[in-house]
């Protein structure tokens, strides 16, 4: 699936919910199901400090695809993080660097990407894109 196909899929998933509770219950579920990042990757280097919650992001090349794993200590952020990972992970660095993310806005969750939320999500997204730029043109077989 392309980045946009995944985004569209998420958007249609969320169309099923007509109130905030079911929407957030779904995000909380996504957060609960998202596999935790192994402790060894919860390093100072991988941490993205929001003001309130912590987000960890680990990136590695698998062939010519850039992959992400992530985690957060707050469950709603974890759910949101899982969506960002689902959309962006496993694409080429070029695709990630040039991706146009519209699904948060469409789902009505864009406030979580606002600067003031200080939940680390916006910084995480910037960091994912930065990895995309940094890894362009690289092919690696093992985790870097």
């Amino acid at each position: 699936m392309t980045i946009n196909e995944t985004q569209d899929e998420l958007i249609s998933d969320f169309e099923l919910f007509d109130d905030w509770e079911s929407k957030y219950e779904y995000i909380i579920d996504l957060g609960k199901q998202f596999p935790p990042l192994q402790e060894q990757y919860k390093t100072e280097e991988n941490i993205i400090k929001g003001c309130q919650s912590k987000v960890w992001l680990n990136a590695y090349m698998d062939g010519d695809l850039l992959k992400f794993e992530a985690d957060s200590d707050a469950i709603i952020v974890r759910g949101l993080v899982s969506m960002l990972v689902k959309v962006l992970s496993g694409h080429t660095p070029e695709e990630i660097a040039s991706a146009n993310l519209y699904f948060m806005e469409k789902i009505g969750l864009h406030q979580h990407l606002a600067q003031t939320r200080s939940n680390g999500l916006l910084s995480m997204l910037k960091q994912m894109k930065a990895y995309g730029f940094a890894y362009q043109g690289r092919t690696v077989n093992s985790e870097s």
Partner: protein
Amino acid sequence: MSNNLDITAIRNDFPILEEIVNGKQLVYFDNAATTQKPKVVLDAISGYYEHYNANIHRGIHQLAEKATAAFEDSRKRLQQFLNAPSFEEIIFTYGTTDGINLVAQTYGRKFLKEGDEVIISAMEHHSNIVPWQMLCEEKGCILKVIPINDDGELLMDEYEALLTERTKFVSVVHVSNSLGTINPVKEIIRKAHEVGAKVLLDGAQASSHLSIDVQDLDCDFYSLSLHKIYGPTGMGILFGKKELLNAMPPYRGGGEMIKEVTFEKTTYNELPYKFEAGTPNIADVIAAKYALDYVDTLGKPNIAAYENSLLEYATQAVMEIEGLKIIGKAKEKVSVLSFVIDGIHHQDTGVLLDQQGIAVRTGHHCTQPLMRRFNITGTTRASFAVYNTTAEIDRLIQGLHKVKKMLG
């Protein structure tokens, strides 16, 4: 709930309380961050811009005279608010933070030397930590911290043990923003003076709840922000004892703060203007008077009594939330209720309350060392003001039940 205030009428004074947030009527419980502003304050701001906007202290025309008179009236009003002996001891600042930096950078840099000690407490806001750290780093002074007990009260014995002839400055928070604790500042000041140290009080939180008398307290400096007392953002005052302010060098250089400027030498203006370089925040200074008048019309003791009844009600009510633990159980407290819930991140609590139209603050409240003391990363904080109601607290409790249900 018995009180002398007509809360319905008071709520009508605050237009913002009608706002709809996420489809629900706003419940605003983030008053320790900033209070909402009554209509009289909003009108004072627009009234100034509509009718007599002019730069002050310099013009000879009508508007300038009117603006200058209103500006200086505000200063006298603030003098009265703190019971300061003289209007010259009231310096307009951008807020509490600005006032503390002013003292650290002028008094501190002039009078503190290597090896001198500065005492703060474990419950300080970052704005009463960082300016002193910067000073200590520059001058080679030592920063000491008064510890607290598990209820969030200062350990006064430990404080006394820290005081020596090396102690030159004590800077403590009058009321804690994270815990609500009212500190025994009079005793802190008296003890500090016994060893010859000067004392600054961070009055950011105290000034909206308590009556403040700087002469009775005998504090050397008192810094506060008007935006926490139903007044405008971007302005505050620093009270300082005249003999100290006179002995201090100026802070910022520029217009207003000078008497005469030549390229060889500048002589500085008198107090309080010596510390007020440049065009000040005229509109907000003028509006500040209206905020204080508003508070006085209601009566600070009435406000305090009502807020305390809200705090008691809320403290009782949250007991029914399983796994909830209150952080800050001081005997002397203002209407701040900080808590953690077992297994639930404070940010999740905040997001889900926001969805229900309830505004609380979550996080470390700019007191990271204090959070570390309690071994937590943050709390959820509901802080109450005079326009809040028990019905709103009921909504908070319902909201928390929902949070528990969704995250449990």
